[in-house]
């Protein structure tokens, strides 16, 4: 016997697979846990090697910038899947749908009548200082009132077993290709486990995404021409860009492949001459989209693209300016938005948050820096954060100054005891912290949520940082239908 689950030590955290100290599995993990225990240490090591090989050969990679050059790294993957029960997932799905609906209402409102500000639910000064607010978008109403067509929300589980929403990524969220590829690798490594049919499939995402993109075309009726705009081969998510384009059968374009004609339509340069583009799934940040409207030095974008969008000749997904709701301070207002726009209580809770712009919250934060995680409003990828309990006094003092100088830009949250799952390490199976990023597609009349999502795991012992740019890895995520098991 390779794995003795009673020796697995996950005390002090909620473990996703193992329910208690005796090593008893949770219902959704039962089949998996017993199966793993039936493998010898050598067999397990063999499967791990097979997974590494599969990843290398399949070329599942991400690009990191290090030592002055871009390096293509193999995707760090743990072969032991993370499980969720279908019952829990159904509720989570409803919560995410509700949340994204409210966020889209909010963005439409902010670029329109700003009712939520006038009604005193959302503070005007927050808007005034938002770096992601785009004045160019005022007065726009994209098809179906959808701005955040694709949302990647990060979920974490605390000690009490509750799933909390940690943040909503509305700009250019990435990771969905790895969600699908993780499943491909797991199927190669543990084909035996998929015979019961209880593990719900994840691979219809590209088809769902295609349908959503097609529904956004300004020329309904025709077969729309859709392109994915990538910053290019040196972007860290390039693998995903080409993967998605390939899966959907749409064109993968760079800025240089597109131009805006005198008729304000967008065209691709093809061997047949210019061809009109209806929908652009852009994986380029707002500020690089159009040198005429935003940063004039951008060579990634397309001059005139914003003009084409404003004239309604092309759909941009996500819409420019959608990032106004992707802000760690705005995040704290999402439960209020749900109440305000939908008249409902939030199904999924936010992590309790202290806004440094609020005087009493700020005083609390400054007094409790050693217990809190402090985040800047607009950074992503885990950069620019202070993890209070692990920081030195010097680091905490530095943040104290930063917060006092610019309170709007900071918020703080209690350090959560992130849940763990068994992970294969060089010294056997050990618990590692993880989170979950599901992806939500909105097309106005309907919403689609991925089955599970991308589980990111902090491969280093005790670490809470799951970002792949900082040593994080991933696991396959199983939503298990216990009724068919």
């Amino acid at each position, binding site marked *: 016997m390779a794995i003795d689950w009673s020796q697995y030590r996950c005390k002090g955290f909620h473990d996703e697979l193992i329910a208690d100290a005796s090593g008893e599995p949770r219902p959704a993990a039962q089949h998996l846990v017993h199966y793993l225990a039936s493998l010898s240490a050598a067999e397990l090591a063999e499967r791990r090697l097979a997974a590494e090989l599969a990843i*290398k*050969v*399949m*070329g599942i990679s991400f690009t990191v910038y290090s030592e002055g050059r871009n390096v293509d790294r193999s995707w760090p993957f743990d072969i032991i899947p993370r499980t969720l029960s279908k019952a829990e997932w159904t509720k989570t799905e409803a919560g995410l749908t509700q949340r994204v609906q409210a966020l889209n209402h909010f963005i439409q409102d902010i670029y329109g009548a700003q009712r939520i500000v006038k009604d005193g639910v959302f503070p005007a000064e927050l808007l005034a200082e938002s770096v992601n607010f785009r004045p160019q978008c005022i007065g726009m109403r994209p098809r179906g009132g959808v701005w955040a067509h694709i949302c990647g929300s990060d979920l974490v589980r605390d000690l009490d077993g509750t799933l909390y929403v940690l943040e909503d990524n509305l700009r250019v969220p990435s990771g969905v290709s790895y969600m699908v590829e993780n499943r491909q690798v797991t199927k190669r490594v543990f084909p035996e486990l998929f015979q019961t049919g209880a593990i719900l499939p994840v691979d219809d995402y590209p088809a769902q995404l295609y349908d959503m993109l097609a529904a956004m075309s300004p020329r309904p009726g*025709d*077969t729309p*021409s859709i392109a994915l705009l990538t910053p290019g*081969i040196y972007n860290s998510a*390039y693998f995903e860009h*080409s*993967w998605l*384009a*390939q899966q959907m*059968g*749409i*064109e*993968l*374009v*760079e800025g*240089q*492949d597109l*131009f*805006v*004609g*005198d008729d304000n339509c967008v*065209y*691709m*340069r*093809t*061997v*047949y*001459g*210019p*061809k*009109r583009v209806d929908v652009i799934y852009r994986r380029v940040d707002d500020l690089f989209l159009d040198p005429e409207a935003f940063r004039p030095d951008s060579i990634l974008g397309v001059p005139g693209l914003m003009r084409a969008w404003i004239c309604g000749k092309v759909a941009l997904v996500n819409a420019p300016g959608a990032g106004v709701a992707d802000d760690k301070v705005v995040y704290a207002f999402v439960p209020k938005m749900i109440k305000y726009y939908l008249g409902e209580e939030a199904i999924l809770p936010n992590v309790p948050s202290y806004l440094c712009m609020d005087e009493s919250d700020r005083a609390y934060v400054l007094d409790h820096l050693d217990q809190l995680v402090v985040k800047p409003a607009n950074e992503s990828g885990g950069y620019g954060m202070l993890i209070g309990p692990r920081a030195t006094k010097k680091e905490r003092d530095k943040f104290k100054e930063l917060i006092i100088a610019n309170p709007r830009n900071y918020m703080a949250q209690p350090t959560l005891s992130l849940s763990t799952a068994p992970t294969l390490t060089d010294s056997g199976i050990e618990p590692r912290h993880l989170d979950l990023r599901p992806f939500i597609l909105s097309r106005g009349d309907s919403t689609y949520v991925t089955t599970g999502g991308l589980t990111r795991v902090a491969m280093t012992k005790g670490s809470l940082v799951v970002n792949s740019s900082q040593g994080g890895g991933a696991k396959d995520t199983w939503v298990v239908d216990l009724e068919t098991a």
Partner: protein
Amino acid sequence: MLSRVADNLYWLGRYLARAENTARLVSVHSHLLLDLPRGMTLGWSPLVDILGANRTFEDSYDTYSEANVVRFLITDAENGSSIATSIARAREILRTVRDSTPREAWEHINELHLFLQERGEKHLPRALRQEGLDRVIDSMLLMRGLLSANMNHDVGYHFLQIGLYLEQADMTTRIIDVRTVDLIQSKAGEELRPFAHIQWMSVLRSLMAYQAYRRHEKIRVSGPAVLRFLLQNREFPRSVTFCLNHLSGTLPRLPHNRASERSLDRIRALIQDANFERLLEQGLHEWIDEIQVGIGAVHQSLAQSYFQPQSGAAQSQRQLVFG
């Protein structure tokens, strides 16, 4: 088909053909050495001459020794036409056109790339060289089969094929050019005759043409007959005429482009009218130069018509294509 993607697919074809031909050249040359009489040495510099890479070579190496030339041709990253470089570039391209090529093509070239990076150096010495070269050759054939069997034969595929066949025509003429320079020189000494015969066979072998030649010509290997076969034969896929005919057959499937057709017709006429007995006596090298210039002209006209990004203004004056 995006102009940038068409450009990439065209170059993918060229790199695949280049890597395969270079691997064959090294392989045949290594074998040829084994058949030479004692006391006679055949240098390794002709292989560098074939690729026209002497300057790059001399930047890094002092002598045209076997070890140096073999490293230069197989693994040297500084050499823009080494096998490793061709594979690395083909891989880069497949990465950028992953969406329009079958996934297995990427997986396969990625595997070969990793092999060359990690174990290429170990396969340079004679004992393991053939194994490494065979792997490259087999991989290239597998890639061609895989692309042909699994990819839509759409306009992108045609660009890939154009790259493959244009590079093959180019490599075939280069191989003939350099190999025959030695032959012509050795004609003076009568006693070298049997080895001249061996060398003509090696020209054929470099192009996997020996068996095909034998079947087709049914005569002893002779200079003019070999040249006729490699340049004018319509059935052997590495003959220059076969490659050019393939291009002529493919061009009509692309958006209309008179310039490429014209430059292609010019080379075809040149080859059709050639008298190889006379060229072997005199002027073969200059004649091949002329063909090489013609191949360059075909490349230029393709690049101008399809690949080079035009300004938005210039494009909107052309007919717009919707749908």
